């Protein structure tokens, strides 16, 4: 199966234009419209976003993703703070890939104090959390924005790329909990 939105994959285009086969994190300030072309509210296309380009890693397949069934993966390394979740929300999301623009991935670490969000996906509201530590929740359709709580950064979003049926993680928007720089 071929994902029709793969051709407009912003992260892929960006990576080819700016840096090839990076091994560590490369930071660049890009416009939201460049990262997610055609998938950003028109007025926000010019909003600048700092992106960490990181080694490309296959994390799943479009054909096997089930709606509201998050798939855990580690990114960019297998450090215990690098747990992430890939989820098909069934609803259009900021930065969402796939036909319905609903496939997103995020760090699984609460950006308040680093509590793990593993297993804490709320399918009804498309929210990660509440974190077991202090109840922070994040809206996965809106780039991990805090719905209610204490995190001083949106949930770190994983940049995705679809190649055929394969889904790749290629970088991060936001700083991973626990780190002073990504990667």
């Amino acid at each position, binding site marked *: 199966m071929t994902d029709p939105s793969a051709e407009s994959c912003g992260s892929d285009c960006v990576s080819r234009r700016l840096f090839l086969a990076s091994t560590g*994190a490369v*930071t660049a*300030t890009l416009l939201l419209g460049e990262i997610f072309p055609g998938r*950003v*509210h028109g*007025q*926000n296309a*010019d*909003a*600048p*976003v*700092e*992106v*960490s380009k990181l080694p490309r890693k296959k994390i799943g397949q479009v054909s096997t993703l089930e709606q509201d069934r998050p798939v855990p993966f580690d990114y960019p390394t297998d*450090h*215990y*703070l690098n747990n992430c979740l890939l989820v098909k929300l069934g609803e259009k999301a*900021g930065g969402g890939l796939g036909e319905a623009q609903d496939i997103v991935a995020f760090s699984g670490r609460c*950006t*308040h*104090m*680093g*509590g*793990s969000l593993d297993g804490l996906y*709320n399918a009804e*509201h*498309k*929210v990660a*959390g*509440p974190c077991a*530590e*202090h*109840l922070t*929740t994040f*809206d996965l*359709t*809106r*780039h991990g*924005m*805090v*719905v*209610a*709580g*204490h*995190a*001083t*950064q*949106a949930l*770190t979003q994983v940049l995705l790329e679809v190649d055929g049926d394969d889904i790749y993680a290629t970088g*991060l*928007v*936001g*700083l*991973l*909990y*626990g*780190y*002073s*720089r*990504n990667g």
Partner: protein
Amino acid sequence: MPAESKPQSSVPLPPKNATVVTTACDYCIVACGYKAFVWPEGEEGGTSADENALGIDFPTEELSGHWISPNEHGSCMVDGVRHNLVVLPDPDATVVNPGGNHSIRGGCLAKKPFDPEGKTKDRLQHPLMRIGGKLTPVSWEDAIEVMAQVSRHVLDKHGTESWGMKTFSYQYFENTYAISKLAFESIQTPCYAPHDKPGPGNDTAGIDDAGIVPFSASYDDWSQADVILFSGTDPYETKTVAWTEWMMRPGQKHIYVLPRRTTGVAWAEANGGLFLQIIPGTDTILHLALARIILENGWEDSDFITRHVANRWEIDSGFGRGTRNTPWQWRTTWGKFGASFVEYKAWLLSNPDSELANAEKVTGIPAAKIQQAAEMIAKPVDGKRPKASFALEKGNYWSNNYLNTASYSTLALLSGAGNRPGQVVSRMGGHQRGWMGAASYPRIFSPEKQVGRRKKEMDLDRWVEAGKLRFAWVIGTTWTQAMAASQELMTTFRTSTSGSEHQIGEADVAHAVEVLKKRVDSGGMVVIHQDIYPRGPMGTEFADLVLPAATWGEEDFSRCNGERRLRLYSKFCDPPGEAKPDWWIIQQFAQRMGFKDYDWKDSNDVFEQAARSSRTGILNYHPLVHYADQMGIKGHELLRRLGTTGIQTPIRWRSELTEPQDYRDYAGYYDDENTRGAIIGTKRLHAPEMNYGKPEGPTLHMKWMHAFNSQSGKGLLHKTPWEEFSDFYTRITPKGDELWVTMGRINEIWQTNFDGSRTPYIKDRWPHQFVEIHPDDAASRGIESGDLCRIENNDVLVQTGGFVGVDGDSQTFTGLDKAGKIRIGKGAYEAVAIVTSAIRKGVLWSNALDATQPPNSVVHRVPDPITNRYRFKLGKGRITKIGESDFKSDLTQMTFRPRDIV
């Protein structure tokens, strides 16, 4: 409106040589402990423990409290040079926020300081005079000279009751001491009001009248409760760390009384608690019903009542006879309110208002839930009483001030709460406790008099409406948006300031003074606005002079949090331009006016002088200054050494500490080996079990430290007749397609939006005023989440006059209405709809503190006649859709997901 937030992918670590100071959060009452790291731009620490000022390896561990998020990093100016700044919740804290817990608000403190190249570049930097309609920089010298000359004229010609101040009550002891010294000691004006109410006095008079100090509890006391009845507040939203750290505990059960299901409510329901979703304004009836169930079942705490609640003789003793001169005395001793247990029980059981069926009807809460709540609070299980505590805030006391607070304290006393760990009664608090009064409010000069007794504190808003105020010095508040019937108040201000024909046209002191004298003599008003940002309309439109204030981080300041914990808020950066701390500005003015005793060299001088005024109060820190003097250091310096732990007031000096170590560690203490004696804090007030030893040195043992704060030392019960309120309540109850408009605070922008609106991360979350509406109310009006709506009330009641009460009902709402002292005004605001079943049907809920779209516009300006407090929570209006907001489809700003997910 494009998103402003720009997530960062790295943050510079403070190098080993970064300057590190301790401070506490500038915002909510909890005042978590923080550390500020400051170092020059271009330098950066490494990720190894030996390469950074935190002394730890990165990546940090989960829950370590050491991670620095990008919003915990910012910039500030030090000696004119731009520096890096990290403001991190103190990972080493052992009190308040152990381990570096924090809220989203405090977590963004690094974005607060002035950055000439950043989002805070619009900080006020110079004194400004409105010349030809344009705010124009002038010298401090000229600004103060104009103020002094016009003030002298106003005082001489129009009297002290024409010269007034409206200021924050909380922004540090040093500043509020200077403000109160000027207003109450030097000028002696009765025209003073704090930022959140129309005049001075108790916030929660019914709690005070019960003999309960509203900030008597420590956070540790709450943690020991079996059950807490939260009335009109969700501390998760507004006292965040007090809740997540000290109340979100396994086994503890919470009962919430709110019109809106919040995160805290959801947690409570998931953890054996209860949600009483109340119709706004009906809390008193709920409290009466709960009390009735408790008394009918004999669940009251009889031992406690016998030992700690006043009987009739004890109520009257010590007061003598004749006129009761203080609000507390007359409310307590006249038959209408104060009651012994026997009297109260007889009154309650014969009062149909307290019957369960009536309570269900009036409050909208199912009878079974009321019954269940009474059982959770007071029903003994296996012969053991539950330890019940009582926490209240503005949803309680800003809807029906006196009756709600008096009935709440009575319910608490019947349940045995008030003076034991886990069994406490306190406000949760709003702002920090930063008021240090230099002198008493001159009530004798107030124009207001209660029927049957002498003077009471004035309602400054009504005084302005009456055209009596000619000179208004406004410090750190927008005033009009913060008070009821905001739009009406703005109109009054506009007419008497920018609407006056007498406007300054030249940058000349003599000319300005001449023009402003003409204005005040023709019935107009001169306004001075002192703040950190240009704030509209008070600063940007009404004020003749705008004065730039220095704030948190720009001066050494001190104050207490919600458990009376005193800390130093250290200076670490420059104030912008010529901005000065408020105490300095007051000093310049006072000295120009010829007032004595303002010879302070620095903020420590003010702190040490103010200590004298703290002595008999719950914020007494005089022994600390005494001890510092013994040690040969400054008061601020000793406080600095106490770090983020600080010390709980009242502070005691003892020749030898006998308190156990855990008490010392919690309350804070300092025992210098080279100095005689030691100082120690006081954990809980009303602590009969506590052995304070003998009062030594500068220590004062006030009655309320071990007993209740009444003449007998016992708690006082109060009857709360519903008819004191029902005439007003009936009149303002929404009719037809009107809905209640109530309001509150929301976690992410509570008390911070003046800064938060300049922090892109926060602004993207809450870019606009919003209104929560129940799905049924929304559907019938064609409203969806994300729609921009207008909420309008053309029936805003505004009290005019009625300052002096002579006979029986002249100050009741009915009496005022009959006498033609209630006029009808208008108000409206715009908000983005959030359709949610979290809010009760028939009720709209907005952010109380949105200064651009203030919901107070649709709130009636008729204060509680007993206490002069507004019923802020009881607005009403019609809501209509204007159109779709950008946020409806924008995936980068605002979210409409429910907040009550647990």
